[in-house]
């Protein structure tokens, strides 16, 4: 019970930190600056086009979510160490793993709350504009995007234990973008490589985080039918298991770290 109270306190702290810093207001303003003029555009005097707006809105949501969640996660431990606020935390009657879990869960909850806010806004605007809204696909997109955040933050969290925040952000950013662009095509790329490179690509294919599982924007924008729920849950489970492994490694490293 005591652990739960400590964990809740740490989560609350991260949530307050996110909303106090007004990052969200900046993001919302940027989104409005981009989308509002576009929403009034009627190319060639023809009204009714909305998919391009949905596409740009979702792209912005993905970019902002990635930046918000990754910058927050990558800075947890390095900031605590630099500002020496880690010492009062470590002096509390809580294990290092619990402290780590609390800080990570806090950032994760904060990021997921922003995600929910963005998706709710997206749904609201779409419902106001058109009579038909693909609820099931929207729900799956939200769930899978949450899986994406889970996967990205867990890897950034693991990196934050032993790399500087900016380097961590850059490395994870490259991994995320590369996997989103090429993850699905690695098997095709493997076929044309030399044996040594083929083995390397096979290893990458098996162990690299497959961020491309979570990008279902095309389905949502172009009104494709929903994915079977079993597949959707399997992808989410993949994110959960992968992030658990990353967190386990992070906790193991943090417990061995000399502070």
């Amino acid at each position, binding site marked *: 019970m005591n652990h739960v109270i400590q964990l809740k306190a740490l989560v609350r702290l991260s949530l307050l930190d996110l909303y106090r810093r007004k990052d969200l207001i900046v993001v919302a303003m940027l989104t409005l600056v981009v989308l509002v003029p576009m929403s009034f555009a009627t190319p060639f005097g023809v009204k009714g086009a909305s998919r391009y707006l949905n596409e740009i809105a979702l792209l912005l949501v993905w970019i902002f979510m990635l930046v918000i969640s990754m910058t927050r996660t990558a800075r947890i431990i390095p900031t605590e160490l630099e500002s020496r606020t880690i010492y009062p935390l470590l002096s509390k009657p809580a294990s290092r793993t619990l402290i780590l879990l609390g800080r990570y869960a806090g950032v994760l909850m904060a990021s997921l709350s922003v995600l929910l806010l963005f998706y709710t806004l997206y749904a609201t605007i779409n419902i106001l504009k058109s009579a038909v809204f693909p609820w099931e696909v929207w729900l799956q997109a939200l769930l899978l995007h949450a899986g994406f955040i889970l996967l990205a933050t867990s890897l950034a969290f693991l990196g934050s234990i032993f790399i500087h925040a900016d380097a961590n952000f850059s490395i994870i950013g490259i991994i995320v973008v590369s996997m989103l662009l090429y993850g699905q095509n690695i098997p095709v790329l493997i076929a044309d490589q030399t044996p040594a490179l083929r083995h390397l690509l096979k290893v990458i294919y098996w162990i690299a985080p*497959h961020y491309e599982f979570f990008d279902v924007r095309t389905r949502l924008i172009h009104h494709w039918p929903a994915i079977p729920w079993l597949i959707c849950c399997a992808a989410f489970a993949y994110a959960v298991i992968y992030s658990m492994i990353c967190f386990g490694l992070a906790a193991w490293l943090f417990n061995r770290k000399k502070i």
Partner: protein
Amino acid sequence: MIKGFYLLIPLMPCLLFTTDWLIARNSAQQGYSAHPQQGNSGNLLDILAGDARDLISQAMISKAESYYHGGITDHDDCQAITGGDQHHEDDHGQHLHQKHFLSRFDPWGYLNKHIHAEAHIHLDRDKTEELLPWYWAACEASPHNILAFEATSYALSTMLEQPQEAVLLLEKGIKHNPYNVSLEIARGEILIKHLKNYKEAESAFLAAYQKSLHEKAPADDMLKAKALFYLGYLAKRRNDLATLHRWQTLGKETMSPDLISIRNLLAIE
């Protein structure tokens, strides 16, 4: 930092506008072209992007094409299903997976295959307006991208039944590309097929033929032959047989008889 960031939001458009105005004013005074390939329109995009505008324009066309195929980029044009709601998960798009190095056990491939849309569809006719923002962006990004003007005018005239808008767009394209033959022909075809304005169409095909003789126009016998065919067809339509024979003789003497348009022109009686 955050307060400074707020200031940037209203400042950025002002800064861009001022830079744009200053560059346009300066280059107009100096009389030089900031970018000879794209021409100097005094547009900030011209100066900053240069020939990259062509690439941007091509990317916009590709985007419009992917919208036509339900947002999917990898597709070919066989056995497509028309209708946004008739999504059909067929064997299409499985080409990638057939080459897999892991044909028996590949859980990631299995997930990808089921998560990402892979069927081959065509956009419903009543949703064609969804293509227009990308076509518009393609034409605006590079006024020298002929394909952008042709594809957009086709979508406007045939799919959206807005031939007047299509003609206006083609006229804009002709203004930017004064030696281009295919834009004149596209304009003439829309005037014939959709607006039934045969007089204007004839002047468009005449302009196309004259441009095709110009040394600055890229040599294209197919377009020249097409212009001749339409001129002959329009002459026949108003029973001006002397003019028809003149075009037929010109086609026979100056063009290859293997061209389908020339064969069609000679077949007019």
